[in-house]
C-alpha cells in the first residue's frame, strides 16, 4: 500500500466522503423540522434546569393518600413514603421565567381532625419557597415556584 499513491488517494477520498455526510448535516439543520412548527416559540428562552429539594410536612397524622405534581409529572406521592410525617424528594425542575405551579392534593379519613401540610421547596442557594395549607378531610392547593426565589412569577 505504501508504494501505491493511487491507493492512498483513494483512501483519503473515501474518508472525506464518509465525513461529508455528518458535517453537512451539522451545518445544515433540517428545514423540514422548522416548517413543521410554524408557531415555534422564537423569543422564549430555554427554561433553566435545576435540582430542587422538596419537602412535605404534615402537622398531624399523615394522609391516607397524597400527590404533589407539576403539569404532566408527579414529584412526590404517598407511595414514596409510608406513615411518615415528612416526605422528601429531589425535583429536577425546568423553571421558565414564568415559574411553575405545583398542585398538592391529599386525603384523610372522613372523621379526621383539621390538620395542616407545609410544602417547602429549597433552592441550591439555600433560599426556600414554602406555604402551609389547612384542611379537614381533603386538601387541594397550589404552590407557585418562581424561577428564582424572592421574585414574583411574571405572567
Amino acid at each position, binding site marked *: 500500500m505504501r508504494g501505491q499513491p493511487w491507493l492512498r488517494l483513494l483512501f483519503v477520498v473515501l474518508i472525506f466522503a464518509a465525513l461529508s455526510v455528518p458535517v453537512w448535516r451539522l451545518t445544515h439543520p433540517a428545514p423540514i423540522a422548522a416548517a413543521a412548527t410554524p*408557531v415555534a416559540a422564537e423569543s422564549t428562552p430555554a*427554561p433553566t434546569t435545576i435540582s430542587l429539594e422538596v419537602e412535605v410536612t404534615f402537622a398531624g397524622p399523615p394522609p391516607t393518600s397524597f400527590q404533589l405534581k407539576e403539569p404532566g409529572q408527579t414529584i412526590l406521592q404517598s407511595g414514596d413514603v409510608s406513615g411518615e410525617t415528612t416526605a422528601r424528594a429531589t425535583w429536577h425542575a425546568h423553571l421558565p*421565567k414564568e415559574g411553575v*405551579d405545583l398542585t398538592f392534593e391529599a386525603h384523610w379519613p372522613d372523621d379526621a381532625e383539621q390538620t395542616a401540610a407545609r410544602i417547602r421547596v429549597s433552592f441550591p442557594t439555600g433560599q426556600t419557597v414554602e406555604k402551609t395549607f389547612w384542611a379537614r378531610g381533603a386538601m387541594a392547593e397550589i404552590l407557585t415556584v418562581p424561577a428564582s426565589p424572592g421574585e414574583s412569577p411574571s405572567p
Partner: protein
Amino acid sequence: MKRFSILAGCVLALAWATTLAHAAANAPLKVVSLSTVLSDLARNVGGDKVQVIELVKAGVDPHEFQPSPGDVQQVAGADVVLVSGKGLEGYLSRLEQSSGGGSGKFVDVGSGVGPSLRLKEDKKTVEDPHWWHSIANVKKAVGVVRDAFGKADPADGAAFAAAATAYSARLDALDKEIKLKVAELPREKRKLVTSHDAFQYFARDYGFRIYPIEGVSTEAQPSSKDVAELIETIKKQGVKAVFFENIENPKVVAAITQETGAKVGGELYADGLGAPDSDAATYEAMMRHNVTTIVNALK
C-alpha cells in the same frame, strides 16, 4: 242602623287596607338589571323575594346596547336598578334622566368591587369594565347587591344576607376549582389571544398574559396593521390557540389562525352569560366553560 252601616264600612275599609298592605309587603322587589351577570347574582341573592327584569339579555353586546322606550318604563317602575358600571353603560345618565331618576335606586355595582384595571385604547387610558371575570370582584358585588336589596326591603334583609353568604361560599369553591384547572397549564403557556380585551381581570387573578385583537370595547375594529402585529406576536410567543367570543364576528380570528398555524381554541363568553339553554347560562357555568375551553386548548 245608620251607625252600624258606618261601622261595617270602616271595618271593611280597614280589612281592605290591611290586605293591600300585606300584599305590598309580600310583593317581590322589582329589580331591573343592566347585565346578564348581575341578573344571575340578583337571582342568587334575592331568590323568590325579587323579580328580575333583564334589560340586557344573553347574546346582546353590552358595549353597544341602547335602551328602548319600553326599557325606560321598566326602569321607571323598578325598586332597584343594578348597573355594571366602570364605564360599560355609556347610556346610563340618559336612562336616569328619561326614567325620572329615582331616589338612589340606581346601584353602581362596579364601583363597589374595588379598583379598576386601566388599559390603553386609542392612545387614551380607559377603565376596564369587565370586572366580573375576577371571582374576588364578584364576591364583593354579591355584598353590594345584598346591601341594596336589604335597603329596599329591610323585612327580608336576613334572607338576603343568608343567601349572599351561601352564594359566596360557592364562589370560593369555584375559585379553588378554577385555580386547580389552570394549574394543569404550564405558566409559560398562559397566553390568551381573544377577540376583544375583556379578560385582563381573569389574567391578573390566574397568571395569564392577554393579546387582544380589538380593544376594551367591541366598537373599535382592529386595523390591518394591528392584525399584522398580532400575527407576528402569536408566532413569536408560540401561542397554540386563538379564541373567539359568543358575541363577536369570528372571521378575524379565522384569518389569524390561517396565518399563524395556531388553532381555533373555541368560544369564550367575554361580555356576559350564554343563553338559558347554553352551558354558560349562570355565572358559575360561564366561568367553568371559559376556563375549561382555555386550558384544554392551550395545553
